[in-house]
């Protein structure tokens, strides 16, 4: 065979070799090595699983609050608000009491309105919520000034 056939062939071979070389250095060693994984759905960098597992947990749950604030948790557990997590109003604990030292409590009307603003939806559970019309029921006042969020019983106001 003549030279003009081999020369472009060498160029192609060199190109492929270069590509493989670059790929060798760029692709992480744990890429696509998951045991028994399918090429379509599981071809990935294995340590990415751990990256996501190590993501910071911020909402710690009622049990975490109970460790120090036993009385408060017990108070709310006997009230109709027992279904609400502490952190829904008090904000995520993260590493409280170290970081943050103090949680910022949301006491605004907007928070209560999420459930207790009246909506005319007879077919949904929203209709069963004790509800008010926010524009008529003491507008501009914070709900917590009259209602105790830990024990929202209307008789013990």
């Amino acid at each position, binding site marked *: 065979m003549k030279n003009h056939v081999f020369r472009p062939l060498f160029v192609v071979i060199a190109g492929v070799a270069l590509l493989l070389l670059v790929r060798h250095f760029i692709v992480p060693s744990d890429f696509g090595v998951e045991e028994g994984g399918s090429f*379509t759905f599981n071809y990935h*960098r294995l340590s*990415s699983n751990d990256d996501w597992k190590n993501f910071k947990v911020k909402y710690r749950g009622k049990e975490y609050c109970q460790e120090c604030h036993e009385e408060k948790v017990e108070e709310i557990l006997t009230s109709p608000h027992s*279904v609400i997590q502490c952190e829904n109003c008090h904000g995520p604990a993260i590493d409280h009491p170290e970081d943050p030292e103090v949680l910022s409590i949301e006491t605004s009307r907007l928070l209560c309105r999420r459930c207790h603003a009246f909506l005319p939806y007879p077919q949904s559970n929203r209709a069963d919520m004790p509800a008010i019309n926010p524009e008529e029921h003491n507008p501009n006042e914070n709900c917590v000034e009259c209602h105790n969020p830990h024990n929202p019983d209307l008789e013990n106001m």
Partner: protein
Amino acid sequence: MKGVVAAALPLSAFKILSPAQVKASVGDSNVRWVFLVDIQKCVGCGFCVKACKIENEVPYDVGVTRTWVERYVVTKDHKTHIDTPMGGRDGYTSSKIHGEEIDPDTITKAFFVPKLCNHCKKPACVQVCPVGATYQTKDGVVLVDRSWCIGCGYCIMACPFGARFFHPIYKVAEKCTFCYHRITKGMKTACVEACPFGARQIGDLKDENDPVAKTIMTKRVGILKDEYGTQPQVYYIGLDERVR
């Protein structure tokens, strides 16, 4: 002699696998995370959306979210009014939909539908990824490798459910992870934890004692957009045909 070799060769290419090996080779594991939403129980408070955004560091005041709550109001003229202001992050506190007041007497039914990534068994978003940055874990969760994603956006367009978006800070595809950092530690997802009414539940479909798995297997549940064939793993109780 030649005939013997030819006959023996293909046979040696076969391997006898134990059932466990077969199970492993099709990417099976003992856990399959699934989600169950009870539409009847949702009151549209939006605590789930708020908790998700804070837990997963999704920019709070940008109109992107990993989970959202849609409102459906059906009126007597067979019209469906749908909205999801800021993904329902601040709850539904006004009866106005897109600035329009709907006469309560004309409402035939109204309900809230929480949505999130369906963590499909056959995720279209994973198939289209050109670099292997998004994938399905062995326990069935679809994740994005932030350090490997090139931000081309194919997956965002491939998802039939609109569950993906472009992360404004990391400049990569972003989606619900079923709070992988929580469920792998035995905790519940942030949205499940935040829901006061038990409208959201997470469970393991392969654990027959799991209450969520029991409900999915024995009760009437629905999924979204079955016709796309992605086999979504978020199941709904009380699904309406108007929900898309």
